[in-house]
């Protein structure tokens, strides 16, 4: 490499001819290095290293007119989760005269509820009702909880006025 020439220079000077100092073939690489690192930095910054993840969801098809009646679900198997404002989660089991309770998205919140309910009710069906004041994040979080808790049967349904009243009356 370019360094080798360093050794040779001294000897040549001793020989009578004064040769013009052999111009070293060394090139000042600094600007090139600057540029290389500039480009490197640029590409490192603009690369999106972690590709975004996705969550696949399949929504039920719209019922057609001549569809057979869907099988009835025992109301005792139903756990309803209502997503309220400010990341609140309301839940109740059954449909007639339910006892509504409030929880949150933490690991000891809705996750625990789902776990105990899953153990209690073998044929658990979860109905997720996001209210109009809930955020998209809440919806993703609750779908996440379904995956964490390995809930086989769940559905996202619209909130009903009854649910809204229930929440209002519960004062939670």
């Amino acid at each position, binding site marked *: 490499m370019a360094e080798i020439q360093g050794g040779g220079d001294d000897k040549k000077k001793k020989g009578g001819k004064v040769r013009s100092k052999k111009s070293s073939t060394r090139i000042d690489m600094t600007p090139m290095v600057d540029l290389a690192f500039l480009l490197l930095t640029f590409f490192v910054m603009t690369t999106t290293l972690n590709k975004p993840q*996705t969550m696949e969801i399949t929504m039920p*098809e719209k019922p057609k007119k001549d569809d057979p009646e869907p099988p009835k679900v025992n109301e005792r198997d139903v756990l309803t989760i209502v997503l309220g404002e400010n990341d609140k989660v309301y839940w109740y089991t059954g449909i007639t005269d339910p006892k509504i309770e409030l929880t949150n998205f933490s690991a000891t919140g809705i996750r625990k509820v789902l776990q105990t309910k899953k153990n209690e009710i073998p044929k658990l069906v979860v109905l997720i009702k996001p209210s109009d004041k809930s*955020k*998209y994040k809440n919806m993703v979080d609750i779908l996440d909880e379904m995956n964490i808790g390995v809930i086989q049967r769940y559905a996202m349904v619209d909130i009903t006025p009854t649910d809204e009243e229930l929440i209002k009356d519960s004062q939670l």
Partner: protein
Amino acid sequence: MSKGTPTIDMTPMVDLAFLLVTFFMLTATAIPDEPVTVDTPSSISEIKIPENNILTITIGKDSRVFFNVDGQPTRAALLGKMGEMYGVQFTPEETHTFAIMSSIGVPMGGLKQFLDLKPEERKAMQPQLPGVPVDSAHNELADWVLQARLLNRQLRIAIKGDRDAEYPVVKKVVNTMIDRKVNRFNLITGMEKGGS
């Protein structure tokens, strides 16, 4: 070489630097220019989003909805189809602008004027774009999705919503999809950041 000048042989370093530059250049996919910054919610899901054939519906924090589809030929053809549907004629220049543009956030009525603007003006307008209409009475998103799916059968639908997007807007978008018999879609989420 004057005595005592410390010279470092930079060659290996330069080699390495260029190797890295080459690597990043080849793997780089520029961050697409999004009209609205979206802070995606996190999830535990670890499915990566496929690279191609993606139709992205972006829902901003301010309830604006944007539509995007990849593949320049698809986009050009899509604009033609949409023009036919809404009775708008697009010039080749406008089609080209559309093909290389990012997300669409303008109703069909204003799209032609929007495409005629200079790139800087378009960029400046981005914060005020109205978004694609998704109301049940006037649902252009449904038409965009329908036409895009007719042009590219392999399209996968991805919804990229901001964590603070209002649920009713998300519901409208999802219902639009279900009405068009799209029952399977992807929700784009980020990585779970520490304890939730």
